[in-house]
């Protein structure tokens, strides 16, 4: 009787283990395939000079911002500018797994901070991205669900852009290390279009042209 019980228990344990392993394999596989399926070749950005032919300054500014918007609206930027307290992830911008929230300073919840998983640099062995400044954008900087015109107005608004002047905004876009991560995101993530330098040049040219925003 005891032997039979032990055998049954052992079989159940093996089955449970196999089941759990299956879940993890499935989870691991789906994580990779989810990203793999959406990987795209990195897009290019048009250089600032290609907008010189637009003589109307306001129209040129709008066109420049629309080009820069290819970066701003890429998953690499949008994932961490969520409309809710939860970020998204992968090129498909699915909800972050596990559930994490913005928390104080955008650094996560007590006991489950961003740094619990995200360290100083990408760690490709585990497929986990990283940067010393890894954090979520504050609520007033939410971009998801907004049009490019709305985002444009938002990033000019010092009440919603971290009190940055336009000059400081250009510097942030062109030089900030966490912004720069978007072009070095590690495997299975499509980098933001172009380069940070090109993106910074577009933002500077947009500011120089009057920083007009697309309608809508």
């Amino acid at each position, binding site marked *: 009787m005891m032997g039979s019980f032990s055998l049954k228990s052992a079989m159940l344990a093996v089955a449970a283990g196999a089941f759990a392993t299956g879940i993890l394999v499935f989870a691991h596989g789906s994580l990779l395939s989810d990203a793999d399926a959406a990987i795209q070749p990195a897009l290019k950005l048009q250089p600032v000079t290609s907008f010189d032919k637009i003589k109307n300054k306001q129209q040129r500014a709008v066109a420049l911002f629309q080009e820069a918007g290819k970066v701003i609206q890429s998953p690499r930027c949008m994932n961490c500018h969520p409309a809710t307290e939860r970020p998204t992830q992968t090129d498909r911008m699915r909800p972050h797994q*596990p559930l994490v929230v913005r928390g104080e300073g955008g650094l996560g919840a007590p006991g*489950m901070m961003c740094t619990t998983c995200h360290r100083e640099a990408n760690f490709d*062995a585990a497929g986990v991205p990283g940067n010393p400044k890894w954090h979520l954008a504050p609520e007033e900087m939410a971009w998801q669900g907004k049009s490019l015109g709305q985002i444009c107005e938002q990033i000019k608004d010092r009440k919603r852009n971290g009190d940055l002047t336009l000059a400081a905004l250009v510097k942030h876009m062109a030089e900030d290390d966490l912004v720069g991560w978007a072009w070095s995101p590690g495997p299975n993530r499509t980098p933001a279009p172009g380069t940070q330098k090109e993106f910074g040049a577009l933002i500077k040219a947009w500011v120089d042209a009057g920083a007009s925003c697309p309608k809508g």
Partner: protein
Amino acid sequence: MTQLTLKINGQSHSIDADPDMPLLWAIRESVGLTGTKYGCGVAQCGACTVFVGGLPVRSCSMPVSAVGADEITTIEGLKSKEALAVQKAWVKLDVPQCGYCQSGQIMSATSLLEINAKPTDRDIDLAMNGNICRCATYVRIRAAIHDAAKSLEG
């Protein structure tokens, strides 16, 4: 391979390891502390949770070379009053079932109580949801954290 010194649970350990080796394998294979478990290897399950510099880290997603001089605490080295309260509550409420995830669960629960002495259900859920339990002991885990918090009130 690189010579590295890890300070784990108050003791120094010299190991020879690839700098990109996950900290988890340094702890388990190089040092021989097997209380920390491998679950998924991609920071999705929390079984490998340890403290680095006093804060919880998924040791599968951190290269051993990134630890530097920070103190590492594993399940074998937990001894704060919060940790002891958590362990007592775990026994009292008979929390584990198969037990595989429990060292990670206890690390995360301890960290939460060290930061937040009186967590709400939501605080617990937010801190613990990265620790997956295949036996679904979540209700007992939450109850045990409340119990541990209450026991710490004195």
